[in-house]
């Protein structure tokens, strides 16, 4: 059987998910053998995934109702739900200041203290100049042909 790369990939995904709905996986495989169309298989596979046909069946869990102290319950909830660990996902070093907050902050600075933008632009220019100077200083260091500093050259560097 000659199959394209995309069909191979679709078959691999299908085999991976097959244990969750064997009759559907078998039907898709059987029909793919007849049609020999990777596009058809991908379409059917994506629709099956969207419809949740390969979703893991939920195993019912018995409730374990135990009388518990409120303080212990709060501690358990914090521990189980992981509420104590905060992760900054805002893209800025300041927690809670994300994209929209940064725009609002910029708007407020522009309207209330527009002169502060000189400091911001100055900071950016100074940072770029400092970075360029660092790159230039690094490029003047003695290095071998392979781009590494060797022992002999290191001695010269310290002597200078």
């Amino acid at each position: 059987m000659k199959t394209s790369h995309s069909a191979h990939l679709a078959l691999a995904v299908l085999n991976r998910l097959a244990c969750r709905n064997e009759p559907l996986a078998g039907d898709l495989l059987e029909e793919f053998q007849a049609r020999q169309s990777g596009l058809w298989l991908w379409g059917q596979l994506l629709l099956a995934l969207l419809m949740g046909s390969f979703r893991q069946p939920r195993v019912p869990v018995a409730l374990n109702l135990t009388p518990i102290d409120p303080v212990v319950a709060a501690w358990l909830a914090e521990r189980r739900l992981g509420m104590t660990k905060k992760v900054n996902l805002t893209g800025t070093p300041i927690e809670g200041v994300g994209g929209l907050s940064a725009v609002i902050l910029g708007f407020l600075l522009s309207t209330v203290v527009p002169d502060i933008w000189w400091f911001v632009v100055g900071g950016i220019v100074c940072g770029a100049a400092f970075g360029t100077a660092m790159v230039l200083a690094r490029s003047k260091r003695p290095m071998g042909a392979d781009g590494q500093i060797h022992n002999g050259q290191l001695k010269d560097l310290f002597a200078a």
Partner: protein
Amino acid sequence: MARPLLTDFELMILLAILRTGDQAYGVPIARELEAAGRRNVAVAAVYAALDRLERNGMVASRMGESTPERGGRARRLFQVPSQGIKAARETQRALVALWSGLPELERRL
């Protein structure tokens, strides 16, 4: 409480199972639907409707034999019990009642 009527897709699936006979599983059912409707049918959509019909007692399923072209996976064979036949007849009766008395539709038949 009145028995709920079948949707058009559910009715088509029941009819496809009855037309296919003893070996009614996903592929021949989807092929029957494609031949009748002249459009592509998602096998997953067929299974979703079959699961819903089975929960309502309109179809019954059992596991069949596995074949090499299916990667050794078993077929799920479907049949329509008497409750499903009754539901199909009631849906047909409702559709025919709605259909009748519409000359512009009768002419096209």
